[in-house]
C-alpha cells in the first residue's frame, strides 16, 4: 500500500534481464509503468490512508473509551458495547431500521421490477419519457424529499392527506408524523416515491438479458404469463436482482437523512416516542449531540457487523435459489 514508488521501480531480477525474451521483456517495462501507476494513484492512497485506514484503526481504539468531545477520553473496556446492547432505545432503532429494510425489499423492489417490465419493450420515445419521469425524484435526494414530504403530510391541507381523502374517503385529518404507529409507514411512503425509479433502472438493464425467443417459445406452447415469468424471466434476472436486493438492504440499514429531516419538527428528528429513530440516527445522537464518540464508534462496529451478516446471508440464499432453478 504505502510502498514508495522508487522501491517498485526496480522489479526485474538478474535472470529476467538476462533471458530478455517475450514475457520477461514485458516484465522489464513494468518498472516504468509501476512508477506511473503509483503516481496516478497517489491521491487515492493518501486520502484512503488518512480518512479510511486511520479512522478504521482509531475506531477500534475509540470504541473502548468514553469520550467527551474529541479531546478528552477515559478507557472503559467493553462497557460502550454493553451499554448499547442493553439500551432499549437501541432496539427501537434496530426494529425501525429492520422494518424499513423489509419494506424496501418486499414492497419497493417488486414495484421497481413491475415498472421496469411495463417499460422494457422496445418502442421508443414515450417510454423514455416515462423512465425519465419515474427516475426524477432521485435528483433531489433524501433531505429534500424529507423536507418536502413533511409538508405534504400536513393534516387537512397536505397534498398526501387530500389525495388519500379523495381516493378512499379516509385520512384527511391523519397526523402521520405525530402518531407513533404511522411514522414508519410515512417514511416508507416517502422513500417509495424517492427510490422506486432508481432500482427500476437496474431492473431495466437486467431485463435486457432475458432471452426473447424463450419468452416467445413459452407463449407458443401456451404457458401462462405468470409461468413464463417464473421459468424464463426470473432466472435471467437473478444476478442483478441479488445485487439490487443486497445494495438496497445495505442502503436501508444506513437510513438516516430521510426520517431525520421528515421528523425534524416531530420529536427532534426521531419522531414521537422515537418511532422514527434509526440505527444511524442513534449513532448521530450519541456521537455528535452528546459528544460521546466512543459510543458512536461502538455503534459503528455493530452496524458494520449487522450489514456484513445480512449481506452474506442474502448472497448465500440467492445462490441456493439460483442453483435449484
Amino acid at each position, binding site marked *: 500500500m504505502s510502498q514508495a514508488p522508487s522501491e517498485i521501480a526496480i522489479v526485474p531480477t538478474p535472470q529476467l534481464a538476462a533471458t530478455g525474451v517475450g514475457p520477461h521483456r514485458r516484465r522489464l517495462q513494468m518498472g516504468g*509503468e509501476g512508477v506511473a501507476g503509483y503516481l496516478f494513484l497517489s491521491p487515492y492512497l493518501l486520502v484512503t490512508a488518512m480518512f479510511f485506514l486511520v479512522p478504521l484503526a482509531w*475506531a477500534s481504539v475509540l470504541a473502548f473509551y468514553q469520550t467527551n468531545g*474529541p479531546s478528552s477520553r477515559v478507557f472503559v473496556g467493553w462497557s460502550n458495547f454493553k451499554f448499547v446492547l442493553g439500551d432499549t432505545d437501541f432496539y427501537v432503532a434496530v426494529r425501525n431500521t429492520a422494518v424499513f429494510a423489509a419494506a424496501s425489499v418486499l414492497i419497493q423492489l417488486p414495484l421497481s421490477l413491475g415498472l421496469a417490465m*411495463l417499460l422494457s419493450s422496445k418502442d421508443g420515445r414515450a417510454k423514455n419519457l416515462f423512465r425519465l419521469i419515474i427516475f426524477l425524484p432521485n*435528483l433531489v435526494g433524501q433531505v429534500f424529499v424529507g423536507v418536502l414530504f413533511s409538508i*405534504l403530510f400536513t393534516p387537512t391541507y397536505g397534498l398526501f392527506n387530500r389525495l388519500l381523502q*379523495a381516493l378512499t374517503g379516509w385520512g384527511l385529518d391523519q397526523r402521520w408524523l405525530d402518531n407513533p404507529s404511522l411514522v414508519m409507514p410515512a417514511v416508507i411512503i416517502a422513500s417509495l416515491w424517492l427510490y422506486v425509479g432508481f432500482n427500476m*433502472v437496474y431492473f431495466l438493464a437486467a431485463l435486457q438479458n432475458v432471452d426473447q425467443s424463450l419468452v416467445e417459445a413459452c407463449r407458443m406452447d401456451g404457458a401462462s404469463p405468470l409461468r413464463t415469468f417464473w421459468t424464463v424471466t426470473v432466472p435471467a434476472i437473478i444476478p442483478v436482482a441479488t445485487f439490487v436486493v443486497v445494495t438496497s438492504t445495505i442502503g436501508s440499514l444506513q437510513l438516516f437523512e430521510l426520517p431525520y429531516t421528515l421528523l425534524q419538527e416531530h420529536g427532534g428528528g426521531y419522531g414521537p416516542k422515537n418511532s422514527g429513530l434509526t440505527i444511524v440516527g442513534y449513532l*448521530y445522537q450519541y456521537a455528535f449531540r452528546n459528544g460521546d464518540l466512543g459510543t458512536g*464508534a461502538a455503534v459503528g462496529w455493530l452496524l458494520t457487523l449487522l450489514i456484513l451478516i445480512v449481506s452474506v446471508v442474502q448472497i448465500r440464499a440467492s445462490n441456493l435459489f439460483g442453483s435449484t432453478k
Partner: protein
Amino acid sequence: MNGLHFLLASMAVVFVSLWFVRSKAAVVFGRWTLLLCVAAVMLMPFVWLVCAAFKDKAVFNEYLFLPPLDKLNSQTINLDNFRSLFAPKQTTQGPVSFWRYVVNSLLLASTGTFISLVLCSMGGYALAKFRFRGRGALLTYMLASMAVPGVALLAPNFAVIYHLGWMDSYAAILVPSAVTAFGIFLFRQAMTAVPDELIEAGRMDGCSEFGIYFKLVMPLVRPMTGAYCLISFLGAWNSFLVPNVFLQTQSKLTLPVVLNQFMGVYQRDYGVFLAGTLLAVLPPAILFLAVQREFISGLTSGAVKQ
C-alpha cells in the same frame, strides 16, 4: 363519488369493454393507463412545489395547486415568497442572505465534482492500463474498503478532522471525498475498453504518460465522464450528514443543512420555505437534463456487468 373516482371508474369500464372486444388492445390500454397514473404520482409533488412557491401566504392552504383562473392575479400569485427568502436574515451570528447558502452549495458541489473527476479518472486509468506490482492487492483492498459503511467511521473521522484542525472548514468536506474507490472503479471499467494500441501509439509519438491519459484516453470515455459528474454532483449537492457534523458557522452552511434548519423557523410560512426548496432542486435538474443520456447509458452498462 368525486372527479377522481369518476376518472378511475371510466378507465376501468374502457378496460373491461376492450377486453371483450380485443384482449390485446385491453392490455395495451391497461399498460399505458397504469404508466400515466404512476407518472402523475411521481410528478405531482414537483408540480405542487412549484405552485406553492409562487402562491401568496394568504391563500396558501385555500387552493391545493393554483387558484382558479378568475382568481389568478398578483394578489394570489406573486414573488413575495422569494423576496422574503432573499432578504438578509438575522441569525445568532449576524445577518446572512439566502444567496450565501446557494453560492456555498454551488461552490462546494462543483469544486468537489471537478477534483474527484480528475483524481478518480487518473486512478481508474492506472488500474486499467498499467501493470505493476501490488495492483491485484490494491484492487482487493479497494473492494473491501467499499464494504465498510461510511457512517460507521464517522465518529473516528470526526476525531481525525478535529486533530487536523479542519473543523468548520470546507477541507473537512472536500478532502475525504476527493477520490473514492467507487469512482476509480467506474473509470477503470470504462477505460479497460480503450485499445492498448492507441496508448502504445501515443508513447511512440513521445507523449508523456499524463498526456496520454489526458489527451487520448479521457476524450474516449466522455459518456462515463458525464455520468460520473452527475453522480458526484448529486451526491455533493444532496449531502447532509457530513456538512451538518463538520460546519458550524452559519454563513458557511449548505442548502440541505439550512433547509432542515428553516423547517422550525418557517412553521407558519411554508411558502417561503418551499421557495427555497424549489431553488435547491433546480441545479441538479438542469445538470440532469444536460447529461441524462450519458447517465442512463452509463448506469445500465455498469449494471449489466454485475
